[in-house]
């Protein structure tokens, strides 16, 4: 079984390596998240919002022209159709309902590309809670539209000016802000990273993705299990959600597309499993990109959402035990896959999701194989990157 153990580990990875100042907050979460999530009152509100606010279930769409091109039966799980344009909102809805029940008044979050920041600002507006989002100064300049979206929604956006001024540093700043305001504040982490119980909690909120794939595939194909599920991995929340109910079904291949950047060995890459080694980042033991001396290395990806030097501990475990197949997809190939989907199916994908689409060119399958690609987000936010790249 691939589940978190009592101490917060997936095999060798996970745990809660946090300063003592955060211990009460993490303990409070750890002791309460399962019972709150299981309570009928929580479930009722959560399910209602997923349905009427987020727009779930999202379609499982048979992409016939893409299938023809690649020679397999390809389904797209349309998380790009979620309110706010990506899967991120599944988690922020869940966590804000949890925060309310824990009596919290303020919400903080980190964001890279701004998708999680927007999803957090959205649910804070919905619940009337104060919201502060930490974002790398560099990303603030790169992702202007999302910064403005957050501000329109009433959130305060605080630039992280330390280190490389990107997602890693925004996460550091959010953790520091939590240390400074531990009593009334909940930190909504956006991926399956951070100290236990975050990786499992976020995965549970995202697990609705594979829950739906199962019954939708049953309806369409008369079987719950595809031959493979493909998802992109930065921290890995959409992948964790798409894989969750297939972890323990070994005949379903779990394929994770990491950002190869300009090439795995170019020095400009975010292919964590290819380049990383075990270590501790943002409160959990995982695989991360680091120097021999244990200093964290700045990654590179054309996609801000995959521009992270680590991966969630559950993915480190899937990699470690060989349950997941990890591929490095380079910037150029991801962009081309994004254009291919646009031309064949009329769907412009987020560049993160385009990494998962290129994986179709990297794996071998048989003609009748059923492949589900998790289309985690839509490409609107990436228009500027598409334009700058220009290859269409």
């Amino acid at each position, binding site marked *: 079984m691939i589940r978190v153990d009592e*101490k917060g580990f997936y095999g060798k990875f996970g*745990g*809660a*390596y*946090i*300063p*003592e*100042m955060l*211990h*009460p*907050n993490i303990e409070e979460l750890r002791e309460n998240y399962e019972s709150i999530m299981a309570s009928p009152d929580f479930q009722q509100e959560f399910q209602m919002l997923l349905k009427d606010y987020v727009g779930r279930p999202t379609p499982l769409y048979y992409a016939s022209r893409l299938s023809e091109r690649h020679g397999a039966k390809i389904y797209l799980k349309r998380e790009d159709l979620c309110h706010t344009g990506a899967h991120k909102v599944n988690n922020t809805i869940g966590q804000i309902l949890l925060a309310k029940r824990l009596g919290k008044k303020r919400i903080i979050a980190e964001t890279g590309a701004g998708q999680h920041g927007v999803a957090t600002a959205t649910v804070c507006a919905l619940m009337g809670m104060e919201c502060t989002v930490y974002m790398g100064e560099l990303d603030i300049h790169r992702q202007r539209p999302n910064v403005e979206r957050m501000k329109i929604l009433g959130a305060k956006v605080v630039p992280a000016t*330390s*280190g490389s001024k990107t997602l*890693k540093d925004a996460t*550091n700043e959010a*953790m*520091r802000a939590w*240390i*400074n*305001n*531990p*009593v009334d504040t909940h930190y909504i982490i956006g991926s399956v990273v951070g100290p236990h119980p975050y990786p499992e909690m976020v995965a549970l909120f995202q697990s609705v993705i594979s829950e739906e794939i199962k019954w939708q595939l049953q309806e369409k194909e008369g079987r719950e299990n595809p031959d493979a599920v493909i998802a992109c991995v930065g921290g890995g929340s959409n992948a964790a959600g798409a894989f969750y109910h297939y972890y323990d079904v070994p005949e379903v291949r779990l394929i994770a597309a990491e950002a190869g950047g300009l090439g795995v060995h170019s020095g400009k890459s975010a292919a964590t499993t290819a380049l990383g*080694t075990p*270590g*501790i*980042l*943002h*409160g959990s033991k995982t695989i991360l990109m*680091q120097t*021999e*001396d*244990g*200093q*964290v290395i700045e990654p590179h990806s054309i996609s801000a959402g995959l521009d992270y030097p680590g991966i969630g501990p559950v993915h480190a475990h899937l990699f470690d035990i060989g349950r997941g197949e990890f591929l490095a997809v380079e910037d150029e190939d991801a962009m081309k896959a994004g254009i291919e989907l646009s031309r064949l199916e009329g769907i412009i994908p987020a560049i993160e999701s385009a990494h998962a689409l290129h994986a179709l060119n990297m794996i071998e399958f048989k003609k009748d194989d059923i492949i589900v690609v998790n289309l985690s987000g839509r490409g609107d936010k990436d228009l500027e990157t598409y334009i700058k790249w220009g290859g269409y």
Partner: protein
Amino acid sequence: MNRIQYLFNTKKERVLSIYFTAGFPHLEDTLPIMEAIQAGGADIIEIGVPYSDPIADGPTIQDSNQIALENGMSLKKLFEQLKGFRAKINLPVVLMGYLNPIIQYGMEEFCQKCKEVGIDGLILPDLPMQQYLDDYKEMFEKYDLFNTFLISPQTSEKRIREIDANSNGFIYMVSSHSITGAKSGISEEQVTYFERVKAMGLKNPRLIGFGISDAETFSTASQYSNGAIIGSAFIKKIKDSANLNADIQEYIKSVIQ
């Protein structure tokens, strides 16, 4: 006898610990800074091992970490510099560092090296107590390294008792819920917390850190504990110092008066 234990056996009040980041402001300043801290009259030297992502530290110490790394500091380099320092330094010396660089170095090799050069204790802010007990306690004891835990105003009485039972050397009281260098001065609320912990009658001495910067805050903190730790304020003092030795001694003397 461990030097930390010896210190607290002989001095119970107004113990002053000074923190600095190894490799800051310049790569080769480590030993000169240690000598100046000793000559100035402080009681404990706390050396920070620089890290790219110090999540419990505020901007001042973050910057010093960044500069130290750019200067080329690493654990390997630090241990080279510390070789033979015991010929000149009698004070207890504590290493403060985040886990990742230490794990990459190898925890056992790290402990062995600490013992070899003459380190007395460790402060590892992202090593939780349970992990310490499960994985490292035996190892630290084997190399006679005292482990210091932090407590904050949020730490429950039950947890403080557990920490006290599992600590040796001293307990590091974070004076408010904050990262280092975030706040200065001591508020009434903090005094209530200091008094509450004082009244618990813990077996370990307590040093108060975060927000201590001068004679006044040092004296106030010392009323409620065995002394205090100065970090960010010290880093600020040495940042642009043209004469480290004189400036450090003058600063420490002004604090302990």
